[in-house]
């Protein structure tokens, strides 16, 4: 398995969607290939930190516009 082939499988590996024998190949590759180890860790961190992204509050001007819109609709 080349590094490129391993990277193609990373999404399924991370999701736990691969058969055990393929996972064994991947683990063995990662153990002996530090670039792939670094790559896999950074891929995992990317997914993890994106999931922690906070929601921004709506701008005050937008909230006011929406409230005005709702009031207008109610009156109709």
């Amino acid at each position, binding site marked *: 398995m080349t590094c490129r082939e391993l990277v193609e499988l990373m*999404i399924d590996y991370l999701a736990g969607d691969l058969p055990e024998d393929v996972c064994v190949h991947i683990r063995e590759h990662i153990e002996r290939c530090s670039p792939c180890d670094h790559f896999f860790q950074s891929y995992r961190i990317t997914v993890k930190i994106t999931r922690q992204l906070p*929601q921004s509050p*709506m701008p005050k001007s937008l909230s006011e516009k929406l409230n005005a819109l709702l009031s207008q609709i109610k009156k109709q």
Partner: protein
Amino acid sequence: METNGHNGNNHLTPEDIFREYGPRVYNLARRMLGNDADAEDVTQEVLLQVVRKLDTFRGEANIATWLHRVTVNAALAHRKKRARREEHEVHDPLQNYLNDGHHANLRPWAAPPEELALNQETSKLIEKAINDLPELYRDVYVLSDVEGVPNQEIGDMLGLSLPAVKSRLHRGRLLMRNALAPHFEEVNP
């Protein structure tokens, strides 16, 4: 948008929905469209659709799922109307390999995941990297990795097969990883 909510929404009003879900609608639209003004337009459009369609929605599945669909459709329609073209070519994130399929040199990232808490600066970096993603990958990436929508549901929303969703998600993640790498790689490993 977590699907934590309200089944059987018989008493919900548009005001209730927007109080609870407005910021999520706005954030999803902002991340899909890449700018605040378009996100505001789409949020207003979604509100109008909620008002118009709330009666037909009542009793259906989950309100968060429904709002995801309405928001995604409104954002896609808005983008189509805007017809903005991607300014740059899509770089294939799987090009960075040697001829034998092995990695070119790679450096480890400085912070192990357990220690990497999101501060404001990191959040900004990630938001910018998302904004820089080509639309082709951005929609799937935002729905999956920011909003936590299952791949099958994303496929239904965007009219994509499951393999297409996974392929776009994977490439989106690779582009994100590459964009964030200069900020997180160890300087002297």
